[in-house]
């Protein structure tokens, strides 16, 4: 009859099993990413670990750096819109609006936009905010093993993408907003479709919240993980859901109101602990608030043009461009030389999916920006990652990273 030692080790002369074998004490370096599924393929974290515990983490972005700022210096102001789509590619409309607002501020036409254009911008921005949060929450839940919410939320996201595709012609890279308004009006009957979809999404949200909010595995993985308190959020320059989860009541739409947000009623959800669970709850509540804004905006949507009537920034109507030489020339100059923006500089910002999304633009009087800088919230948020993953387990990096909601295109520019 073989004894235990033979069964386990396979040989009798092995070191006595009663003696405890200690694990080596040396620290180990582990590369997480860039080709790790939870790192979105764009970030590398060099982890120094003591067993499973992280002693030091060096977060290295840059794998998706596409020179947004350099390319923008060689593009006309209108040509930059497609580049902004590729910053935060789960909420491109908000980036479009941010860029347009910056140029309008430089031109001094912020207050002259048609009201319908402002409302349409708010509507597409809030739809984008919902798609952003759906992706963030769905993907994070999936990374923790909850696959169903991911599929449900991506189904909802696809409904909204389809709606945005009807508006702009592109599913993901919309390039819909223009300096001075938006490129085309909403299709007939679009708002009814939107409202119908919002009701369906509300129903899906109930199901997903039932699956996640009181789920023990989900709560254990999220609660108390990756917390950043209010003071830390301030000095790290955190904005958006991360700051709000820590109780820092900062929302650009409320604190520095722009567009027609003052005419719409909505609440800014805040958390208390600043951990991953609160970040998740804040995002869920923001989806609901965005839907509330959308319902009001659709009800209040005024009639009228969606483009400013200013020959300096607006393209001439197509019928004129094809039939009169003056409009033809204007169209040509507009496309080739770009909108001429008076020399000067400004910084304008909007509430993006992740927080304060701003553009700092220096104009030199030509049709191209002299300098275009984007204050990308993902970059600012990711800079805290090295600090907050410290003393957590390797497995905790996944929910922390998911709830920072680093969007590669925006972070790496």
């Amino acid at each position: 009859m073989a004894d235990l030692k033979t069964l386990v080790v396979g040989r009798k002369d092995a070191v006595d099993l009663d003696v405890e074998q200690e694990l080596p004490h040396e620290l180990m370096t582990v590369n997480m990413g860039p080709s790790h599924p939870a790192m979105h393929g764009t970030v590398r974290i060099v982890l120094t670990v003591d067993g499973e515990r992280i002693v030091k983490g060096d977060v290295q972005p840059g794998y998706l750096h596409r020179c947004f700022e350099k390319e923008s210096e060689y593009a006309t102001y209108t040509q930059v819109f497609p580049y902004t789509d590729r910053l935060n590619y789960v909420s491109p409309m908000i980036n479009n609006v941010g860029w347009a607002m910056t140029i309008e501020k430089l031109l001094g036409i912020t207050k002259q936009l048609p009201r319908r254009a402002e409302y349409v911008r708010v509507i597409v921005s809030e739809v984008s905010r919902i798609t952003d949060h759906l992706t963030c929450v769905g993907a994070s839940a999936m990374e923790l093993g909850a696959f169903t919410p991911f599929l449900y939320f991506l189904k909802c996201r696809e409904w909204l993408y389809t709606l945005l595709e009807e508006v702009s012609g592109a599913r993901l890279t919309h390039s819909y907003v223009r300096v001075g308004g938006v490129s085309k009006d909403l299709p007939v009957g679009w708002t009814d479709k939107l409202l119908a979809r919002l009701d369906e999404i509300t129903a899906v949200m109930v199901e997903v919240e039932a699956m996640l909010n009181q789920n023990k595995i989900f709560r254990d993985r999220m609660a108390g993980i990756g917390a950043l308190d209010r003071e830390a959020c301030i000095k790290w320059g955190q904005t958006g859901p991360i700051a709000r989860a820590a109780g820092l009541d900062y929302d650009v739409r409320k604190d520095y109101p722009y567009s027609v947000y003052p005419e719409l009623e909505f609440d800014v959800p805040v958390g208390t602990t600043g951990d991953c669970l609160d970040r998740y709850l804040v995002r869920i509540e923001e989806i609901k608030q965005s839907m509330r804004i959308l319902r009001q905006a659709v009800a209040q949507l005024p009639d009228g043009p969606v483009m400013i009537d200013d020959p300096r920034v607006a393209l001439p109507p197509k019928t004129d461009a094809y039939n009169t030489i003056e409009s033809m020339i204007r169209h040509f100059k507009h496309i080739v030389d770009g909108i001429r923006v008076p020399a000067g500089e400004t910084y304008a910002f909007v509430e993006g999916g992740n927080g304060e999304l701003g553009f700092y633009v220096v104009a030199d009087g030509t049709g191209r920006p002299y300098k275009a800088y984007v204050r990308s919230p993902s970059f600012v948020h990711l800079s805290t990652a090295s600090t907050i993953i410290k003393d957590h387990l390797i497995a905790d990096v996944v929910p922390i990273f998911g709830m920072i909601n680093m969007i590669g295109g925006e972070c790496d520019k």
Partner: protein
Amino acid sequence: MSKKVLDALKAKFGDAIEATDDQHGDETAFVKRDKLREIATWLRDDKAMAFDAPVFATCVDLLDWRPVSIPHTPSTNTRPEYDGAGPRFEVCWQLRSTTHRHRIRIKVRVTEADPKVASLTPLWIGFDWQERETFDMYGIRFDGHPDLRRIYLYDEFVGYPLRKDYPKEKRQPLVRRPDLVGDH
């Protein structure tokens, strides 16, 4: 509200404020390089200023700065043309106050030969990556930054891509040089 910040700065520091600007409602103060840390500390700690949150840090390269005026359009330009000799870079930091909601942009002019400026990371930790990015893209050296390394690009990269004299189409092969890592 914000104009108050510029007035208070001028009253407090006088000559250390080289110039101020409030085009488009964005308050900007150009400060003397060696006074930067002192002014920034006051902006952070004074009760009436309370600039507790960093927003962004970047730099403007003035090498090709030849502003064009547009007929019948008022220009808000306050920068003179770059003459090739004066300070080539404007390093800027934007700050925000969570209590007063005002914002300010502080700028320091530095020359190409000596692109050094005090780091504000010890005052606002949020400037850590922002200053690394500015170093990476413009080659500005931030004195007192705890970890000044390239952030988007690799250590072997030669030159600073957002400088105006770096050609947009330029390509560089990546040749690994372990001796360079973390050291500039």
